């Protein structure tokens, strides 16, 4: 699953930017959140349509391509900022990327109210017909007295607040799934994908038992356990014989990145043709053996887990 995050402000120093960055960093294991800036978006002006400008098209594309959106809003004058309102006006004029998009609202403020009025107001704006977003109901996250809330590293000081934020985010991720499933016309296969056991808790005939799947040296330990051959030893294939070295050479010279996940959803092989950093879908050597739930954020995984299963 991929979310985008927007802090509704163009101030240089903003606690709502800090809050959003914290959510993206702290919960990166749960979900991938890309933060989008709105500094370059001009004031909405219907006489001077700038929908096709780079800045607006960038937001349009990013939001359209995301599974959901998180907006962190400050409160000015009991409402959201003009800067955020202007962005929404552009994105409800000629293009409508928010349409049917699940949106979660959070907010931080200097005072006790914690942006409560701005959040309500934003909800109303996002649900206007031209915007047509699907705002996550209930689950308000208001961060009051924000000047005291973060430590020097931009982390929330209060563990209870962090835990509450996490449970809210978890619920939102479920909400995103539900809304997007509802929205997919007649896909039909989603339920099957959802019921996939991505933690690889099952067992198939080739599962190597009693080796810690998450361990970085799973390959070495599992190889030892099953006495796996390597080097110049021959392996008999469907029609031919190759040594393990030849097989490696062959697979690593493929111009594509190959990943093998077995039908128990355990990731057991990739062709280590290049450095992790250079890979399109980066894999680390230590990941091999992991259940798929540890390898990817879950959205991307759905396709992989179903299409690569033998």
């Amino acid at each position, binding site marked *: 699953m991929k979310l985008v995050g927007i802090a509704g*402000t*163009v*101030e*240089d*120093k903003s606690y709502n930017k800090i809050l959003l960055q914290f959510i993206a960093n702290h919960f990166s294991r749960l979900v991938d959140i890309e933060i989008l800036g709105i500094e370059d978006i*001009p*004031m*909405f*002006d*219907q*006489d001077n349509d700038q929908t096709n400008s780079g800045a607006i098209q960038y937001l349009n594309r990013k939001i359209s391509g995301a599974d959901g959106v998180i907006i962190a809003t400050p409160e*000015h*004058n*009991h*409402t*959201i*900022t*003009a*800067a955020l*309102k*202007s962005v*929404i*006006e552009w994105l*409800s004029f000629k293009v409508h990327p928010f349409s049917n998009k699940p949106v979660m609202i959070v907010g931080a403020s*200097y005072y006790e109210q914690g942006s409560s*009025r701005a959040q309500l*107001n934003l909800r*109303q*704006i996002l*649900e*206007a017909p*031209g*915007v047509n977003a699907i705002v996550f109901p209930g689950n308000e996250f208001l961060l009051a007295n924000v000047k005291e809330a973060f430590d020097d590293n931009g982390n929330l000081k209060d563990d209870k607040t962090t835990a509450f934020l996490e449970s809210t985010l978890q619920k939102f991720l479920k909400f995103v799934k539900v809304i997007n499933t509802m929205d997919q016309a007649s896909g039909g296969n989603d339920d099957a994908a959802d019921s996939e056991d991505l933690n690889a808790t099952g067992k198939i005939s080739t599962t190597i038992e009693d080796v810690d799947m998450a361990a970085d040296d799973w390959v070495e330990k599992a190889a030892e356990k099953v006495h796996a051959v390597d080097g110049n030893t021959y392996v008999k294939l469907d029609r031919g014989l190759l040594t393990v070295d030849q097989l490696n050479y062959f697979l690593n010279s493929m111009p594509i990145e190959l990943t093998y996940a077995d039908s128990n959803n355990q990731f057991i092989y990739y062709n280590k043709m290049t450095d992790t950093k250079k890979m399109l879908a980066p894999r680390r050597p230590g990941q091999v053996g992991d259940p798929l739930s540890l390898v990817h954020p879950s959205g991307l995984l759905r396709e992989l887990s179903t299409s690569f299963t033998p």
Partner: protein
Amino acid sequence: MRKYIGLVGTNTKQSTNRQLLQFMKRHFKKQAEIELIEVSGLPMFNKPQDKQVPARAIEIAKKIDASDGVIISTPEYDHAVPAVLMNALEWLSYGIHPLLDKPVMIIGASFGSLGTSRAQAHLRQMLDSPEISARVMPSSEYLVGHVLEAFDDQGNLTDKDKVKQLDALFADYQQFVEISKELWHTLKVDKEEVKKIDAEDFK
């Protein structure tokens, strides 16, 4: 004669909200002077650390300060006040507070039948915030729906009932401006509150 500022809450050239204010200016010229002010052209509000408020905002603030009251005409975008008007109000409540205790009347015109009802409620809420603390006339919603048919070629409201309603509302507003002068007890507290907010912003 009283002097009012008419704030045009849009940056669109062809705006019925501007037209509505222009109509009021002509229609009430014997009772009051109404000067129209545009809110477009201000930079996007970004709470600048250097506390510099744009010259144009200061100019608008001075005019509001010198007036007896403000009439704001707002369109409705996405069930709310347009960003351009929100932006002006942000600048007009950052270190400067010309709308503090100023009698305000809200009007609005729209293409559809609802006539900006949600935007007006939104504007009311903004004007009620401690940073602005304007004195908005209660029970005074004035909505003009279906505006494309509402004005004739000379820019006059064609619907006699709408004109009658506006006459009554404006008479009430004149009275409201008078009454507001008696409501001075909170002014001192409001000013202190605003000072506190500014101090927090400028820390």
